């Protein structure tokens, strides 16, 4: 956890520089706070994500990754959600 935060601080500047460009949720570092800008894809999973409140404008926070690095745990609308990185990739976010 701490290490992740340190790494964050180290790369803080780079993060800021590209903060306005939309990125996907899966590359956010642990502990990062961001806002959803959209969900790509058209299958059942995109629908499920939207139904569960991962819609444009919703704040998300990356809480942690599972022991083998995948899936990740995010916090959205006050609850916790586990997602694989492949699913997280379909969620675009901007840091704010």
């Amino acid at each position, binding site marked *: 956890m701490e290490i992740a935060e340190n790494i964050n601080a180290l790369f803080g500047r780079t993060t800021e520089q590209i903060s306005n460009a939309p990125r996907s949720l899966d590359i956010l570092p642990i502990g990062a706070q961001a806002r959803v800008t959209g969900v790509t894809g058209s299958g059942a999973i995109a629908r499920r994500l939207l139904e569960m409140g991962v819609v444009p404008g919703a704040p998300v926070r990356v809480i942690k990754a599972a022991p083998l690095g995948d899936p990740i745990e995010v916090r959205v609308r006050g609850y916790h959600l*586990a997602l694989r990185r492949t699913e997280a990739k379909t969620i675009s976010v901007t840091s704010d």
Partner: protein
Amino acid sequence: MSSVLESPSLDSQNADAKHAPARPLVIALAGNPNAGKTTLFNSLTGLRQKVANYPGVTVERKEGSWTIASDLRSARLIDLPGLYSLDAASMDERIARDVLTGNIPNLPAPDAIVAVVDATNLERNLYLVTQLLEYGRPLVIALTMVDLALKRGLEIDANELAESLCVPVIPVTAQQRVGLDDLSKAVLRVIGRKAEGARWRLSDCTECELMALMSGGGDSIDRQTALRTLYADELPQDDGLREAIESARERLAHINVNWWQEPLIARYDWIEQISSRAVKKHAAPRLSTTERIDRILTHKFFGPLILIAVMLLVFQTIFSWANLPMDLVDKGFGRLGEAVGSLLAPGLFRDLLVDGIIAGVGGVLVFLPQILLLFFFIAILEDTGYMARAAFLMDRLMRGVGLHGKAFMPLLSSFACAIPGIMATRTIENPKDRLATIMIAPFMSCSARLPVYTLMIAAFFSGRKFFGFLSVGALMIMAMYLLGIMVAIGVAWVLKRTILKAPTPPLVLELPPYRVPNFLTISQMMISRAWLFLKRAGTVIMAISIILWALATFPRPPQANVVNNDAAVAQATKAGEESETDAGVKTAPGLAGQSGEQLSQSYAGRAGHLIEPVIRPLGFDWKMGVALISSFAARETLVSTLSVIYNVGKDRDSSSDSLVNAVREAKREDGSPAWTPLVALSMMVFFVLAMQCMSTVAVVRRETNSWRWPLFMIAYMTVLAYIASFITYQGGRLLGFN
């Protein structure tokens, strides 16, 4: 009562139903998973529930009667599985939706829906509510978890919420029975009144398209129907309408590629407006208790260690805690057998009762304590929220074999029983992933195998300990469980690359907050499980015991009839040559020898002899063959059959471990022991892998809607079991065991 009559009835059908005493009111509980539906259900019905099984649909839904007003009548209250939306993705959601929309035969559409809304998760819970509003059935909101929300600094204004949604909102605390009266009054008030509908709007272009659809064509449709058809998965049958929809979609897609997301996003926009008015946020602790617990339980390093420790603990306690009650049950049946034996005159009837029924059923009932403990642990793991964490920790490994993280939970509950496990696969969206999970679920060692493992271990591996506290028995059991898991992984790997080839399934899984388990729910579940088990022991196992006793007793040799009727029959089911030693005291040696012969000549004996050449390479003799055949009906019958064959009901002077001793002392024709540790191990391996449960076969048939899969399941599992057992026994012999 008066308020009911005053309420304006827009829905004439419901208004009629209200006055017709013939049909009680139907009320459904709907809500997100974990919102507190079952807790509310239990409080409202006071546990007066029955498991309703709706024909035609593969559902067991809980239904209870709710005394909705003391002077009026009771309503049928239906508890449903949790769902996030009415656009159902998985099978259990589809079932819940069908009940809500009245698409289930023999169940009328609910007269009112109680939407259970978790106050700590207001926005996501309101999504389902907006859909229910659109659907238009009379609706009341029961707001649960208000206490938890307050702890998190969320204060919810129920009046404000009710005003925005135009439906009654009743805060309830089901466990303390707070708000239940208000809830029944509100339900009675809304019956016959349509909900007003959600007032969210789409973009101008989309609204224009909707208007066009509503007015276009011959018969006009309302906004709701237009909206539903425009965004539905399937296109309508009607040619004119289909064309209109197709071209509308094309235009919408031109403006926005993700056109289909618009209503979903619009609903959340509306919800956000409502919640910003109805929710006051106070300062809350930075880290919730759940997050603090998860720092350890899903920790990169400690998480998996704790998962292993938890599983070890479960097996160890099942094995050691259950001993005392098991002894009591065993002794009780021993006494009962003695008492009945001494009360009745010797004869066929006494033998049927003592050797057949009491020995057979008692042999299985002994395992009730263990099974209850297993269900107790599974219920605790589920109720606390740890099960979802286990799925989170295990997902990467599950994905390695092409399975869904969500498959972890059905597989875990298959350790209790494959049937609820297979039914739990309904949460998996993709049919191929679901099938793959169903096909491997029976490899999880279910509670019906425990009696077999326990008997084998008690007879041949008991008493030793590792590190002073881990018994060899517990480790052996764990090894059997692991064997099942390993084979399941292998089979899943093969299936997912051959007949069930599909891309790796996605995972979107809520990690619910940790909760102190509700012991009422848990004890309720244990009671219903115990009841099922007892019913099975009283019906299937009893029937098999009687049939087996008869098959082992008849045909009776003519000589015995003449010489000494009773003695011959009493010996008839004695274990083969073994009876020569201890029966010799009571009867003439010649006769005892003949009664060993008698079992061998009986129908059961002939069947056992028939398959003996096939099972001999596994280390089994013909008597085990008899038990093996009967165990294909249900696994635990192995124990009852052995009880009947070795005739423990007769063993008056033995200790409580009568069957254990009988197994230890059983001999083959050549006088060598029938069972050795290696034979016992081979038997356990066979039981880990073989498909020996007719109820599971029936459920797989029901869930897959074809005979192909259950037959395939029986075939490949039994072949695997044979091979593994063969390798165990022959390999063991090569290594010098016998």
